[in-house]
Structure formats: C-alpha cells, structure tokens
C-alpha cells in the first residue's frame, strides 16, 4: 500500500508545479497513505510543515522515522497534544486545541514564515476539524489555506478521510485545489 500510494501520488501529480492536493484517504489505509504522501513531498521539497490535528507530533515523529522519512526536515504545528498554553520548540509548536480555526491559521502562517527555503505543507486532517466545527466554516478555512499556500509558493496537501456525503467537504474544496487524489 505504501509504495502504491506513493506511486499513484507521483503519477497523479506528474507535470504539476508546486501542486496543492486534496487527498481523499480511504480510512482503511490511512496510515500508509499519509506516509506515502509525506514520502512524496519530502523527496521533492527540502522542508515541510506538518499540521497535525489527529495525533501528537511525538507519536507521528516516531511513525515517520520508522518509515524512513527524514523527520528533521519537518516542523510540526500540533493542535492535539494537551498543553495548558502554547509551547514552541525548534521543531514544533503545540497549540493545545483544534477548535479555533483562526488560531490554527495564524500558527500555520507563522510556521511557514520560519523557513526561507522552499517548503510543503500537510494538513492532517480536515475530518478532525469537522468534529468541532461547522462544515461550511471548515470549507472556508481550507479555501483560505489553499489560497495562502498558492501565494506562499508552497506545495502540499489537505487530507480528509473518505466520509459519507453529508459531511463531505470534497465537493466544496475540489475547485480550489490543483488535484483531488484518492489514496
């Protein structure tokens, strides 16, 4: 699964310069798909911002390391680790909560500004935001982020787990991304 995800990502994005991808991930293969996606971007771009709403960055770092991904090139914006106040370190910032979309935007913007070199951005995931937010607000948030990524010259991916149509934001977001990839 890992290699096929990776393979299909590379094929799907061939010819696109600094693509912004909406990744619709099969929940059965979520972990492999994320690793595949990250492997693709880390192989192309020297620096990455990984916005995690799902798993603490400490857990993710270990998973990615095990998968042979260079974690040192990643900066994590973590909105899931339980911290009493914002905690910033050299490779991460922990916000403490994923409920405030504005704070998440600002923290992401700050993280992007930290690095002058070319970078990619992965948001993991829009699905988590839907637990705490209205789907229209999440769609606007994602729209703004995609627009900013384009302005920053940042490639990357917004992840969403494949869901039933009622909560699906894919239709609303697809026009703002270069490609919708099913993983």
């Amino acid at each position, binding site marked *: 699964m890992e290699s096929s995800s990776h393979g299909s990502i590379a094929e799907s994005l061939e010819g696109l310069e600094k693509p912004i991808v909406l990744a619709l991930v099969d*929940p059965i293969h979520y972990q492999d798909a994320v690793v595949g996606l990250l492997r693709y971007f880390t192989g192309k771009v020297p620096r990455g911002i990984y916005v995690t709403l799902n798993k603490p960055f400490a857990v993710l770092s270990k998973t990615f390391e095990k998968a042979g991904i260079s974690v040192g090139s990643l900066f994590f914006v973590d909105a899931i680790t339980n911290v009493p106040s914002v905690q910033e370190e050299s490779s991460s910032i922990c916000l403490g909560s994923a409920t405030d979309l504005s704070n998440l935007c600002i923290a992401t913007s700050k993280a992007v500004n930290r690095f002058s070199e070319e970078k990619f951005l992965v948001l993991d995931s829009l699905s*988590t935001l839907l637990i705490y937010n209205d789907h229209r607000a999440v769609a606007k948030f994602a729209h703004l982020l995609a627009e900013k990524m384009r302005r920053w010259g940042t490639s990357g991916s917004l992840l969403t787990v494949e869901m039933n149509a009622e909560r699906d934001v894919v239709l609303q977001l697809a026009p703002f991304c270069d490609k919708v990839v099913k993983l």
Partner: protein
Amino acid sequence: MTNREPKETIQLSVLDSALYGAARAFEYLGPRGQAMLEKIGEGIVDYCLKERYLKPSDNWEELTTELTAFFVENGYLRGREVVREGEIITEAIRGYQYLSLKKKLRDKGSVLYSCPWCVAEDAITRTMGVSGPRLRAISEETLSDGTYVRKHEIAGGSESKRDVLSIPLDLSFIKAEALPADSVGLPVFEAVEYGLVRGYNYLGAQAQLLLDNLGIGIIEFLEEEFQLNLPHEPEKSAKSLASFYVSGGLADSIEVDISSSSASVEFTNYRYAAVLRALLDEGITLASCPLTLTIRAVLRNAGLAVKEMKWKIGDRRDVTLALPIINVAGQQFDEDRVSSMMDAV
C-alpha cells in the same frame, strides 16, 4: 488460564443498537466497509486476550475455537456445526443472536455484517495469514427451531480467509449458561465497545467522527425497532435515550442535563465503566458507549458540537461525563479578517 467466571448480562437491544450503528456507519464505503468492521474484530480479540477470555496462541484454530467458546458462554450463539459433503460445506449455527439484526440489515440493502463473533474470527484468520480454498455461498435458511444454516461450495483458488473444514467441530467442552433469550453476557458487550474504539484508534482524533456516525445509525435503529420518538429538544431526546438504555441495562440510572454551553451525564453502576477505564488507562479518549454516541448525534443535529469529553470514574461503576459544547450552527469564519491576521505575522 482463561477468565470464565459467571457473568452479568445486558439486554441484546443495547448491543444490537451499537452493531447496527456500526454496519450502517460504513455502508458508504460499499463492500470496503467490511474491512472497517473487521477492525472492530481486531479490537474484540485484543480485549478478549487482555481480559483473559482468550489464551494467547500462535495457532489460529485454537484461537477461533476459544473465541467461539467465549461467544457461546456469553449467550451469543449456542453452537456451530460444520459438515462437508463432497464440495458442499454446510454450517449450522444454533441460537444465533445476530440473526434478527442480520435480517434487518439485509432488508435495508446492506452488504455488510457486523456480527462480533464473525468479525473477530475474520480478524484472527486475516492477521494470522490463514488461507484456504475460495468458498462461494450458495444458500441460507433459518430452520423452524431457529437454527441458521448456510451452505458454501468450494470454488477453488486459495484467496479465502481459511479452510472451514479444519475448524474443530467439537465444542462440547463449552458450558453455555442459561441466559435469557434477549440478553447477552456483559463481556460480549464490553468486547464490542472496546473493539469499536481500539479498532479505529489508529486514525487518531478523527476516529471520533466515524464513531459519531454510529450514533446516527443507532438512533435509526431505536426509532425503527423500539418506536422511540425523539423530541426536537436535545435535552428531552437525551433523557429519552437515557431511559431506553437504563431499561436495557447500560446503567442502573442515567441523569442527563444539557445547558447552552455544556452537557453532563451521570451514570450509576455503568456497565461501560470497565471499557472506559481500560481505554483511559491506554490514553485513549475516544468514546463508543451507545448512549454517548447518540447524545453526541442529538447535539450535532441541533447545531451543537462537543469539545473534549471529560470522564470521571468514581467508586465502583459510578461515572460522570462532562461535555463542553459549542454552537456551530451559526459559526462564522471571516476569511478576510483571518487572512489579514495571517499576513501580519
């Protein structure tokens, strides 16, 4: 040494509501949804091993036999016989508690099955890499004594999960307890509830979104099977659901209070407490309690979202759940304002 003490029971309706919700929640994936239900099976096996209902073994036959024994002892089925005649394999399952739910799901056009015994057995054979001949279902029927009979034909190939023929047929060592027909042993309920969370924990926090989908299906089940009529007001709905689950044995009493910014639920002698404790001990904050999932669904339907759930486990099995809630129905996200703020950093 397995842990086979006399058990408490819980109404089948409580378990069925969760199993129905699970099957409905993954229908949108089509046949792939079965793989998600099998994840519950993995969690069920984990729980059974952890609680010593199963002995750890590298032998899949031992494990599946023990698993069947566990479900028999807890009243989920009375027994299974498998007979081969030529290329036809006939499997007869007696006293199968999943039967009515299976029919209901079939009537809904669902291609998925959420029988906890089956998904756990599938999980064992898949994770242990068992392969055998490909089997093709050719018929099924329910006999007058309630025995469910299905026939398979050996269709060749080696992609199926296992060779049914090698399942040990002698289950006579199992001492099935005389449980009421509409009840199952509490360990089965606990294993399923634990399995639901453990099975989806790999998805991280977003697993709660999938679990919340169960809540929608559970409400559908209760409305259709028990004519539960939920009022429009979230608090009245939640109280009505709580009352149903008390009658089903989920707790001795359940008090629900909902305000504009929070909800609280107080359970007395909560039969989900052991699962909750196990999950919290593992640092997992996802919830699978059917009442909790339905309350979350009711709140969501009213435009309210639940933030972090806070559980407090008191003496014995008395538990309090605090649910901070936010109104998302009118939630605004001002793109222009936030865009300016992003540019300013």
